[in-house]
């Protein structure tokens, strides 16, 4: 599965995107954020405040309990500031 990052989450992680093999116990968007936090100090810094992280699964906004089964692309980003 591909994980993509935007704005300050991207800057803090240090990469725009990465391909990951999910452990079997990572089932939801919230699980993914918790698991990614353990991958490196940069990930831990970027995702240290879970409430500040928004998630989209296959380009649709998702809540932390959204299942990841079958997902191809999950995006993590801060609250949006368009318009």
């Amino acid at each position: 599965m591909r994980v993509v990052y935007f704005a300050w989450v991207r800057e803090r992680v240090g990469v725009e995107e990465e391909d990951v093999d999910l452990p079997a116990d990572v089932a939801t968007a919230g699980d993914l954020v918790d698991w990614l936090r353990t991958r490196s100090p940069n990930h831990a810094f970027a995702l240290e405040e879970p409430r500040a992280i928004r998630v989209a699964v296959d380009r649709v906004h998702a809540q932390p309990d959204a299942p990841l089964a079958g997902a191809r692309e999950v995006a993590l980003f801060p609250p949006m500031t368009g318009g």
Partner: protein
Amino acid sequence: MAAVTPSIRVGPEPVDVAGEQAAACAGRSDIGAVVAFTGLCRDEGGQLAALELEHYPGMAEAEIGRIADEAVTRWPLLGLRVVHRSGRVLPGETIVLVVAASAHRAAAFEAAAFLMDFLKTRAPFWKKEHRADGSAGGWVAAKDEDDAATERWAR
């Protein structure tokens, strides 16, 4: 009556406000009201040199499309166009344009406000500041008041 198909565009090109309004009305004589909301880049008292607009390609267009589709189910719109800039935007330039057309003004006013409230909180765009003095600018923070503005449309 079939609902109109919204026009959605995201890109780095300057926004042609008059052209978009003309396009919303082209070839029809049943439109009695057009509301065009234009959001501009401010210079913040001379401190801002530019805004860098990052977006999520693919999702940005899709999410604006979902918001626009919701608007055309709520109001009897005869035209709806949304243009959002990406990349570097200078003070005075247009960041976002919403054009809503309807037979009577209430629908156009309300739909334009609805689009903007949801664009602010749901469309995947992020603004980074470039400061006029050359110092490092930060990411613009989301505002609680924008979330509150979105919640007023709940039903």
